[in-house]
């Protein structure tokens, strides 16, 4: 049982890391575009990252519960948002 748990946790952490990496690229491109709004190439790159990130987050949320509150993510029953672990506990 413990092995199954740790496997689930490791898979979750792996997926989370992938989201963190991709979102880091998005943040970096976002800040760059704020001061270079007329450059096409980083904008195309940004839109590509948005697509991949939305897909990946949807998969993560289906498995591990909502990443967002306030109407941005749906929830299964019972209300999933309150579920541990919180980010500082992972």
């Amino acid at each position, binding site marked *: 049982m413990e092995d199954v748990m740790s496997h689930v946790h490791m898979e979750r952490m792996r997926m989370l890391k992938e989201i963190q990496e991709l979102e880091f690229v998005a943040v970096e491109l976002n800040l*760059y575009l704020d001061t270079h709004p007329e450059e096409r190439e980083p904008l195309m790159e940004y839109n590509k990252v948005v697509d991949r990130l939305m897909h990946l987050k949807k998969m993560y949320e289906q498995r591990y519960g909502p990443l967002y509150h306030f109407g941005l993510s749906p929830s299964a029953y019972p209300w999933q948002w309150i579920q541990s672990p919180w980010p*500082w506990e992972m």
Partner: protein
Amino acid sequence: MWVYEKKLQYPVKISKPDVRMAKYIITQYGGPDGELSAALRYLNQRYTMPTERAKALLTDIGTEELAHMEVVATIVYKLLKDAPIEELKRVDLGGHYAQHDRALFWNDANGVPWIAAYVQATGDPVTDLHDDMAAEQKARTTYEHLINLTDDPDVKDVLRFLREREVVHFQRFGEALNHVQSFMEKHPGWKPHPDHQPKPPSEWAPPGGWLPPKG
């Protein structure tokens, strides 16, 4: 408005507690050059920026600093978790325990609480963007000092990430500053408020600006 994302911007893996390091790192939570100061400084200055780029950049970097505050909080929380009282007393965190137990609080490495006087908003976009660039440099230096204070590779890794972000922010603020300056040259009548005395561009910075030429 803001929404919360139930994840950290960067993973914080802490394998062993270190109350002494927690006492030092807390300064990037609530010290003069910490993430609270940074987030509040930028999110507050954006209202009086003249260009779309500067308004967007201050909003976005201010938001990223809030995420950094959470990363720093998580490091400190994990480093302090389950620390025995004797350990806290040994590194002079007895005072912290008396007031806050192991809860987080916005203070610096010497226990001095955060004050709004750490940040400034002058309403002059050129002045404020210089202030922001200085803030990024001060934060970078503090992260370098913190990296020197630990041998723990897990802690060093997160601190290095945070340090690198300050370098990127500094660069972006410099670009926003150059753009604001050229905007003000093109719109000599622009004033942040009716009683503002416009200065000739030569008085803001030396010719060519402070930043080294590109390329």
